[in-house]
């Protein structure tokens, strides 16, 4: 336990908690916009874990300047990876937002469950089948209900 109260210990705690909060939001939120925000949090936590993997207690930033030839530098690789991951994240975020706009326009709702049930009905109608759950046994989709709802 004495290792916990160090810079790394606290930061690992923060990073994992951030991921878990994001994951929790992804699992329980109903609102599309809040799902998006949770995704951002989840991603931020993962990025922090990645940066932490390259951290050295007394290291300096990995830039060669005149005065620092002898010093120990932090690992530059995770930093480069996180740069990439952050930019990817913002691209996906904008993409998700544009899809949310269209979904809101079409269904007039921001509730994931409403949208999902409407979507299932539409699919069933397209296929020419009675929608699941209308008069028969409960929808068989329940069987493969997973991670995300």
């Amino acid at each position: 336990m004495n290792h916990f109260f160090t810079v790394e210990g606290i930061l690992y705690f923060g990073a994992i908690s951030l991921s878990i909060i994001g994951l929790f939001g992804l699992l329980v939120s109903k609102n599309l916009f809040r799902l998006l925000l949770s995704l951002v949090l989840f991603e931020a936590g993962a990025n922090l874990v990645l940066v932490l993997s390259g951290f050295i207690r007394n290291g300096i930033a990995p830039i060669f300047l005149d005065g620092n030839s002898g010093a120990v530098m932090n690992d530059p690789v995770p930093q480069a990876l996180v740069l990439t991951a952050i930019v990817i994240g913002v691209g996906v975020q904008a993409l998700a937002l544009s899809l949310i706009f269209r979904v809101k326009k079409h269904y007039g709702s921001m509730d994931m469950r409403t949208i999902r049930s409407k979507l299932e009905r539409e699919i069933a109608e397209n296929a020419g089948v009675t929608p699941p759950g209308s008069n028969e046994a409960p929808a068989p989709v329940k069987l493969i209900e997973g991670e995300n709802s």
Partner: protein
Amino acid sequence: MIWVVTVVVFIMLAAALAVLFLPNMIAAVVASAVVSLCLTVIFAVLKAPDVAMTEAAIGAGLSSLILAIGLKRLGYWKTDSIDKVKAGERHD
């Protein structure tokens, strides 16, 4: 340094919880910007200046801008007092 980190981490986690539980969406977006700012500080502490700059520019800046546009377009941009002044421009 360790106390700085502790405080920043706690602010970050509090803001992250606020993102999930604040009923007002504008506040939630602002809270997510706060999370990004705290991350920027943490990255700077971790001696990762490139990442800190990116997080500040993209996480706190651009991402919040995108989310703000989203708020406006999705009709969450409602603050009662201002809306009364600018009647007629309300988005639904």
